[in-house]
C-alpha cells in the first residue's frame, strides 16, 4: 500500500482531469499540459467527471463552471466527496469576474481559479503549486497511515502485555480490612508493584517494590518478581529467603542500571509479630492507634538486583506490634511529588495526615498529593499501603477425598539396612501415597518415628533411657546409640501398613526382633519436665488407638484419616 503512494508522489508528471464542455478549451489545456509531460483526460460535463473520477484517479481537476447536464458548482462537492484522505486540488476554469460567482466557487470546494484566456506560465505555476501541496498532503497521509499502523501494533502489544501483567500480579486475595493501598502508575504500566499473599501457616506476606524508572521497561521485572514472590509465599518461606531469591533472579535478569527497591514483610497469624526485609525504599513507619509514629522502618539493605548472591545480605528486622497498630509503607513517588515551586510533598506531610485523624486512610494521602501537585503531570509511579496488624486466620480447609482401594505395604529391614538408613520418612512417603493421607504427614511421621525408634533403640540395640533426663545424659544417649548401631550385626524390623477404605483407617504394625519390654514399665506419658518418655504420650494422643503384643516387641497403631489432622 505504501509503495503505491511513494511511487506516486515522487512522480513529477501528473494525471490531470479537464472538465469543460467547450472542445477548444479542452484541446488548448491538453496541449499546454502535455507539453509539460502531464497526462490529460478530458470530459465534457460535471456528471461525466463525477462518474469517471475513480477510474481516472486524477491528481488535479480543472473544472469549468458553466456546463450542460451538471455544472461545476454541482460537480465540485461531489468530486471532493470521493476523496477524503489526500488533498485533491480543484481549479475552476472561469471567465467570471463577478465576486459572487468566485465566492461560490470557493464555497463548493474550489481551491483556485484559472481564467480564460489561459496563460501558460500562470497555468504551469498553479499546477506546480497545487501538486506540491498535494504531494505534502500525500506524504502526511502516508505518515499518518504508518503511524496508525504502529499505534495499532503498539496498542495490541500493550493489551497483550497488560493482560499478562494483570494475571501475573493479581492474586485474588481479598483482605480489605487488613490492607488499604493505592497504586497509580505514571504511565500505562506500573514500575511499582504491591503483592500480598497468605501464608500456609496463617498470616500474610506483603511486598512493596519500586523498579528504577517507570513505564513498560520498569514494569517488565514485575512479572518474574511476582511469580517468585507468590510461589515462595505459598511455601511459607522466610522474608530473608524470598529477598535472596528475588535478588539473585533480578541481578541475572535486569540490565546493570536497573534494580528494585523493596520492602518485604511477613505479618504472622496473630498480627502481633512482623519480620521485614527492607531494601532501598523510603522509611516505613509503625503507627499506633491514633496515627503517631511508634517506630521507623529504616532501609537496611541495597535494593534487589544489585548485589551478587555472595554479597547479598538476608538479615531481617523483627518487631512486635499491637493489633491496633498499622504499618505504613510507600515509594519515593509519594514523597517526591512536587508542586509548582518544585517543593517535594515530603514525609512530614504524609505523617501529618496519618496523625490528623484516627480514621485517616491511604486515600487521604493520595488526595493530598494530588492537591499538592495541582496541574503538574505525575512524574513517577505513586504507591503506598497501610497494613493493619490484625490476626489472619488460616485459609479454609479444602474438601477431602479418600482412596477406595484397600492397600497393604510391608517393609522388612535387616540389620544392614537398620545401620545404614533412617527409613521413617520413607515409610511416611509410602503411606502418604494413599489418597487422603498426605495431610496427615506430620502426625504419621511422629507415630512412626516414635515406634521405629523405640523398636530400634530398646528392642534391637537394647539401650536404656535412664540418664536421658540430664542434658549431658541426653547427648550421651545419642552417642551410645550411634555407637551401638555401628556395631549392630544382627536383628531385623518389620513394618506394615494396612489401609481399610471402609473406615479410612490405617493399621500400622512395627515388630522388632528383640525380646520385648514389659508393658507395665511403660514410660510416663504425661511427664512434662523430663526429656524422654514423652513419645508414648504423644502417640496415644495422636493415634486413634495403640496396642502391644504380649511380649512387647510389636506395636499396633490405628490411625483414622477421616479426621482433621489438627483435631485434639
Amino acid at each position, binding site marked *: 500500500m505504501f509503495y503505491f503512494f511513494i511511487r506516486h508522489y515522487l512522480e513529477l508528471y501528473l494525471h490531470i482531469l479537464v472538465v469543460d464542455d467547450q472542445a477548444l478549451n479542452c484541446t488548448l489545456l491538453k496541449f499546454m499540459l502535455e507539453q509539460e509531460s502531464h497526462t490529460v483526460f478530458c470530459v465534457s460535463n460535471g456528471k461525466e467527471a463525477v462518474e469517471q473520477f475513480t477510474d481516472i484517479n486524477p491528481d488535479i481537476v480543472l473544472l469549468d463552471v458553466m456546463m450542460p447536464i451538471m455544472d461545476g458548482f454541482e460537480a465540485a462537492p461531489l468530486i471532493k466527496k470521493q476523496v477524503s484522505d489526500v488533498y485533491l486540488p480543484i481549479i475552476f476554469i472561469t471567465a467570471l469576474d463577478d465576486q459572487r460567482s468566485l465566492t461560490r466557487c470557493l464555497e463548493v470546494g474550489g481551491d483556485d481559479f484559472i481564467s480564460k484566456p489561459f496563460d501558460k506560465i500562470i497555468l504551469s505555476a498553479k499546477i506546480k503549486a497545487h501538486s506540491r501541496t498535494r504531494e505534502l498532503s500525500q506524504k502526511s497521509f502516508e505518515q499518518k497511515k504508518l503511524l496508525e499502523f504502529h499505534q495499532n501494533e503498539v496498542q495490541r502489544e500493550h493489551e497483550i502485555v497488560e493482560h499478562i501483567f494483570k494475571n501475573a500480579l493479581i492474586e485474588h486475595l481479598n483482605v480489605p480490612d487488613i490492607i488499604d493501598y493505592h497504586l497509580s502508575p505514571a504511565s500505562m504500566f506500573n514500575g511499582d508493584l504491591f503483592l500480598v499473599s497468605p*501464608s*500456609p*501457616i496463617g*498470616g500474610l506476606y506483603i511486598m512493596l517494590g519500586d523498579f528504577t524508572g517507570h513505564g513498560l521497561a520498569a514494569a517488565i521485572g514485575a512479572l518474574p518478581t511476582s511469580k517468585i514472590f507468590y510461589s515462595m509465599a505459598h*511455601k*511459607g*518461606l*522466610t522474608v*530473608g529467603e524470598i529477598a535472596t531469591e528475588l535478588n539473585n533472579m533480578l541481578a541475572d535478569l535486569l540490565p546493570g542500571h536497573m534494580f528494585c527497591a523493596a520492602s518485604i514483610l511477613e505479618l*504472622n*497469624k*496473630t498480627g*502481633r*509479630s512482623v519480620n521485614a526485609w527492607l531494601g532501598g525504599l523510603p522509611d516505613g513507619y509503625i503507627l499506633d492507634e491514633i496515627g503517631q509514629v511508634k517506630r521507623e522502618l529504616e532501609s*537496611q539493605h541495597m535494593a534487589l538486583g544489585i548485589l551478587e548472591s555472595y554479597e547479598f545480605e*538476608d*538479615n*531481617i*528486622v*523483627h518487631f512486635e506490634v499491637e493489633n491496633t497498630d498499622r504499618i505504613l509503607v510507600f515509594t519515593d513517588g509519594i514523597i517526591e511529588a512536587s508542586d509548582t515551586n518544585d517543593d517535594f510533598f515530603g514525609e512530614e506531610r504524609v505523617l501529618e495526615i496519618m496523625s490528623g485523624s484516627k480514621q485517616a486512610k491511604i486515600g487521604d494521602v493520595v488526595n493530598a498529593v494530588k492537591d499538592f501537585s495541582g496541574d503538574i503531570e505525575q512524574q513517577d509511579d505513586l504507591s503506598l499501603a497501610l497494613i493493619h496488624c490484625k490476626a489472619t486466620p*488460616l485459609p479454609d480447609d479444602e474438601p477431602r477425598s479418600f482412596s477406595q482401594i484397600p492397600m497393604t505395604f510391608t517393609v522388612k529391614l535387616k540389620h544392614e539396612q537398620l545401620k545404614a538408613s*533412617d527409613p521413617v*520418612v520413607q515409610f*511416611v512417603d509410602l503411606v502418604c501415597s494413599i489418597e487422603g493421607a498426605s495431610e*496427615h*504427614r*506430620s*502426625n504419621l*511421621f*511422629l507415630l512412626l*518415628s*516414635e515406634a521405629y*525408634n523405640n523398636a530400634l533403640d530398646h528392642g534391637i540395640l537394647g539401650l536404656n533411657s535412664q540418664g*536421658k533426663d540430664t*542434658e549431658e545424659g*541426653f*547427648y550421651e544417649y*545419642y552417642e551410645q*546409640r550411634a555407637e551401638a548401631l555401628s556395631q549392630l550385626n544382627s536383628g531385623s524390623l518389620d513394618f506394615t501398613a494396612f489401609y481399610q477404605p471402609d473406615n479410612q483407617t490405617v493399621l500400622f504394625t512395627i515388630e522388632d526382633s528383640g525380646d520385648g519390654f514389659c508393658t507395665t514399665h511403660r514410660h510416663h506419658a504425661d511427664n*512434662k*519436665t523430663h*526429656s*524422654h518418655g*514423652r*513419645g508414648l*504420650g*504423644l502417640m496415644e*494422643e*495422636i493415634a486413634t488407638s495403640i496396642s502391644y503384643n504380649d511380649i512387647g516387641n510389636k506395636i499396633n497403631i490405628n490411625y483414622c484419616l477421616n479426621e482433621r*489432622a*489438627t483435631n*485434639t
Partner: protein
Amino acid sequence: MSLNKNFSSDGKLFTIQIKGKFDFNLVQAFRSAYSEIGDKTPKVIIDLRETDYMDSSALGMLLNMKKSLGDSVSSIQIANCRPQIKKILQISRFDKKFDID
C-alpha cells in the same frame, strides 16, 4: 533436613530455622547453634515454618536448650508452626514453658 541460624541486624534477635525433619539427627547441630548465642541476651526464635516433621527427640532438644540457655537469653519463642507441629507442642504442654505464637 537442615538448620539455619541468623542474628538480626541489631543483634537482638537470634533465629534458628529448621527445615524438613526436626529429630535427633540434628542433636549436634542444634546444640552448637545455640552455643553461639553470646552475652547480648537476645531473644531466640525457633522458626519452624518449614518443619514438616518433629518427634519427641526434638522436644527433648528444645527442653535442653531452655535449661542450657537459662537467663542468657531474654526469651525463647517457637514461631510459625504448622498446625500439626503446633498440636504436638500443645499436647506436650510446651505452651507452658515456651512462647508459642
